[in-house]
């Protein structure tokens, strides 16, 4: 039965709002950083949510919001040049307009995590959505316990948010460790995949909530490392991306078994995912 009271004046969930690109710069060879704001009124969102970005004539793509809602005046996206829509976004300039729908998804459990020690394990551009919650925590620092960030990138030139990572490395109120998979002349830090950093922070893991985000292939290995370090499953959260198309739980593309990532994700508690074999 029809459960709503829609009429022709009701909101259309597929209609994008216009937003203006306020700033844009390349972070490296493939990732573009953008600051945007909606023309009508500021975007209201929670850490970990995503938006559907429209380029008229090309299409629409889901992009995680990289800023914290404590950051006012604009929201931030980082876009990899990976397909038609993102390629077009890379060609756009400051002042150009895009369509935005959202925000969608449930995001990070920011309130539930108050008082907890937090560990972030980020693989490559997995840092991008995690940063939304990291900066939220740093802007509400007294509300949270110890913060540890592990960042692993495939190679030196692909790193993102380099200046911010530098700042994090020098802050007194968090631990930041970085590694790259392949050695490079310019790199004097750790070499190895991000899981090689996990044994180094064993003391930080005890009692902490661990948030994992990275490329699909990474999750299995990180979860195995965390299991070896005896981190209970209910303390682990995974940020799972799928092909969000409509963003509103109708089109079916983003399903992980019975979950609709656009509705109850992308951040999932690992223990709660027990009945979703397609997840990892």
């Amino acid at each position: 039965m029809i459960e709503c009271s829609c009429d022709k004046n009701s909101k259309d969930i597929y209609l994008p709002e216009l937003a203006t690109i306020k700033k844009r710069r390349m972070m490296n060879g493939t990732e573009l950083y953008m600051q945007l704001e909606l023309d009508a009124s500021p975007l209201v969102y929670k850490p970990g949510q995503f938006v559907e970005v429209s380029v008229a004539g090309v299409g629409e793509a889901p992009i995680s919001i990289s800023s914290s809602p404590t950051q006012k005046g604009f929201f931030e996206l980082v876009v990899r040049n990976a397909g038609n829509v993102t390629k077009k976004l890379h060609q756009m300039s400051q002042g150009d307009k895009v369509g935005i729908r959202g925000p969608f998804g449930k995001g990070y459990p920011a309130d539930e995590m108050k008082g907890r020690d937090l560990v972030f394990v980020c693989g490559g551009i997995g840092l991008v959505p995690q940063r939304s919650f990291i900066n939220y925590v740093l802007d509400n620092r007294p509300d949270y316990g110890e913060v540890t960030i592990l960042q692993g990138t495939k190679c030196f030139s692909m790193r993102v948010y380099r200046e911010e990572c530098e700042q994090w490395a020098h802050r007194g109120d968090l631990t930041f460790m970085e590694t790259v998979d392949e050695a490079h002349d310019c790199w004097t830090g750790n070499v190895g995949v991000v899981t090689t950093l996990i044994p180094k922070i064993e003391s930080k893991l005890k009692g902490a909530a661990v948030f994992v985000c990275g490329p699909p292939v990474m999750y299995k290995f990180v979860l195995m490392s965390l299991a070896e370090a005896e981190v209970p499953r209910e303390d682990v959260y995974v940020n799972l991306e799928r092909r969000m198309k409509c963003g509103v739980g109708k089109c079916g593309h983003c399903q992980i078994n019975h979950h609709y990532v656009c509705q109850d994700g992308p951040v999932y508690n690992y223990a709660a995912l027990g009945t979703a074999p397609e997840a990892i």
Partner: protein
Amino acid sequence: MLTGNRNMSIKKLDRKALGRLIDGLIAANRNVIGVKAKGDRFAFGKLDSADELRLDYDVTLLPPRKYFQPQVETLLTFKVSDGYKPVDDSAEMILVGVHPYDMVAINQMDTIFSQDQCDKHYVMRRQKATIIACDVVNASKNVFASEMGTAVVREGYDVLLTDIGDSFVAEAATEKGEALLALAKGAADANKADLQKREQVWARNKAALGRHKLGCKPSDLPKLLEKAYGHAVWEEKAETCYSCGSCNQVCPTCYCFDVQDRLNWDLQSGQRNRVWDGCLLEQFAVVAGNHNFRKKRADRFRHRLYRKGMYVPAKIGGQIACVGCGRCVGACIPDIANPVAVYNRILEDIKL
């Protein structure tokens, strides 16, 4: 269930009277869509005359959901410089000849599209439709509605027609239906004997629309599937699966869609269209970077049946999202789509 509890008209219309009613609606430009012959098969299409209407059909090629979620539907138009405008091209229509199992599917789609974040495009089309359902006269080769509890339906339509031999019982279920029946001037009320004949049709259909026998109750399917994730049947069936998506295409409860932009020749304006998509198709779960989250055919085949038997029922209060129309059974070239065959194969090894 005899009359009385709805205070709505139940008329008796002989074939000529029904024909006159339909012709009257067509003449009044009411956009009458009904079941017509298409070669030796049947399909819903616009009626130019009541003579074209074939209420004795067994099953249509495509389900009537194509009128509420068209194969290609323009959601928005855009101008590159100006932004987006929503499109509402919904129109009044009268849909004649919807079988009970298809009506059940429409009822399920109504819930899906209007719950949570309401899909206005679907709702506008649905609200403008007047549905004249009709009980099955000839069972199709693969129908198993009897097994799924959808051989007879008593809600969702505006009028229900039941062929009782020499005439039809026509029952109004809504004000729209009542207004429609009022156009059949001089039609007598159905009497007790007519209604008894209707009960017999229902009893006959509840027994006869079961070409494939399910080895458990439909309500047991979620429990069965909980235990069947790793069963051999998925690989067995998928070995010959073409991933063609035919099962998705003909299914009344499949509604997954893709959204695509089309730019006009002027490179300035265009449309954003919603198009039917299918989870059996290989590209369905592919993301940027070319990672496919459901690469194996067996996984995609399994996913469709889990949606029907477990995931979608959880969203619609438990009703199984397969209405036993049998279209997928007929459409599948390697003949692996029959849900009953799959569930029965699982039941060989797994006890409830």
